[in-house]
């Protein structure tokens, strides 16, 4: 076979290969990246800026139903309610107040209602140093025992602040203690976390995932007291 014929055959073969490749690239016959699973939008519940509770002051300003705070709708004036305790000295919460879960203080020991409520006027609070405070002044009441936390709160370092960091440009909203803490059971409640990040790699579940399952139910101890 002549050299020139060989060259021609190679040239034609190369041309065909290139044309096939070009056709394949243009029609995207391969190399298509697999489509990723679409990621669902996050539940807008997680985007809400509301605190976990509503304080009395906020209820008043939003003109909500305040019948829960009308003590003398049921109680009799001038007749302090009688508190009953079980043999372990835990408060027996009366049927009418069964929505109240007592969990204040170390080992839930701050369970004497009159530590905060004034037994002679149930619509007032009393501090241990003898001050009388309205429901709307509950922050002062909390501060009468939790001094360092109150100091931090007053400085803006404890609790949620909203609005403007620059006081000249707009108001700052400082939430009351009871906007986040249930006064009868102040430990901040656990909550469902927002969805984790969707990584491109398969999720690396930690090896001890299974062991943790049973522990979710119990309250997280010793962190937020």
């Amino acid at each position: 076979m002549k050299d020139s014929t060989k060259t021609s055959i190679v040239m034609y073969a190369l041309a065909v290969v290139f044309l096939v490749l070009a056709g394949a690239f243009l029609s995207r016959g391969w190399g298509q990246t697999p489509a990723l699973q679409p990621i669902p939008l996050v539940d807008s519940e997680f985007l809400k800026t509301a605190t976990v509770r509503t304080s009395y002051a906020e209820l008043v300003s939003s003109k909500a139903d305040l019948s829960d705070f009308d003590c003398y709708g049921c109680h009799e004036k001038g007749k302090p309610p009688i508190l009953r305790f079980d043999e372990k000295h835990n408060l027996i919460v009366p049927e009418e107040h069964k929505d109240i879960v007592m969990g204040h203080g170390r080992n839930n020991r701050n369970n004497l209602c009159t530590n905060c409520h004034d037994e002679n006027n149930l619509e007032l609070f009393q501090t241990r140093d003898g001050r009388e405070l309205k429901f709307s002044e509950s922050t002062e009441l909390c501060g009468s025992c939790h001094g360092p936390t109150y100091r931090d709160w007053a400085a803006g370092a404890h609790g949620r602040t909203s609005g403007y960091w620059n006081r000249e440009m707009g108001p700052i909203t400082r939430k009351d203690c009871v906007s986040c803490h249930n006064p009868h059971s102040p430990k901040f409640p656990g909550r469902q976390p927002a969805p984790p990040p969707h990584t491109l790699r398969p999720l690396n579940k930690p090896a001890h995932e299974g062991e943790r399952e049973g522990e979710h139910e119990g309250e997280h101890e010793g962190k937020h007291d």
Partner: protein
Amino acid sequence: MTDQPSNESRRDVGPEREAGGEPNPEGMSRRSFLRTSAVFGTGLAALAAGLAPLLDVKNFPSLQQFMQKYYKEMTPEEMAVVLKRIENEVERQYGIRPHVRDLKPMDGVEFVYCLNLTRCIGCRKCVHACVAENNQSRSPEIQYIRVLQMENGSLDMEKAVHDYDPAKVPEKGHFYMPVQCQQCKNPPCVKVCPVHATWQEPDGITVIDYDWCIGCRYCEAACPYWARRFNFAKPSIPKDRINPEMDYLSNRPRSQGVMEKCHFCLQRTRAGRYPACVEVCPTGTRKFGNILDPNSEVSYILKTKKVFIQLKEELGTSPRFFYYFDV
């Protein structure tokens, strides 16, 4: 290169046909014609195949965007034109008329962030509030904040869990450490940028000009906090989730192939407001303010609290992001 044989072959086609298929003594033989046209065709096809990826590019920059000047060199009038262009583009792409501004840093303000590790419960609300505020891509997902679940008694981030998803947080035996851009005083990401598309502003925020970024991802590699994100695909944001309050340097929609990162919600904080992550935190873990104001809450925290870490402070990046504990 392919032009030369093509001209020749075209010129030679005529005479060849006229000659009724007989080889033209003055022109080219049938064989050499076929060979030349095969080479030409192959070259053309290879060129087309090489350019094929261009078919995937959907949003070519407009001439106006292409000719746009560097952020720091633009006059206010030129910036007004650019803001108008961005508003039009966003309206065309997302069907919502935004309000794009170019807020400048305030005098006597240096932003600092404080995060209380005692309080964080790891609920990730900050992550998603940030995404909503800053028009990040939802799918593929871009998030500026990563909440790390850490073992109690250790700050070993190698052992941190990123994708914890129990029914309820916080979990026993763990604490949570959200990490985002630390707005370093000595930012490694700024040093490596070959085109000066990212820089530190006088109020301490390291920003990116998305129209100047070439997407080389050097900054992503340089950042020790894994705070920078790259838009591998065109961001997808549903129309009803667009935040129309935008700023040139912060939350205007990005294009494919540029970097982005936390900018302390510049569009909010330069207007005096708190960042979105501060506003949404249910536990008051996150604190933000002006460190140059002695009465701000961040000044109070740095003065009175046990400020435990600047993350990876041994690297000398000097973050403006402080982690502290309540004692």
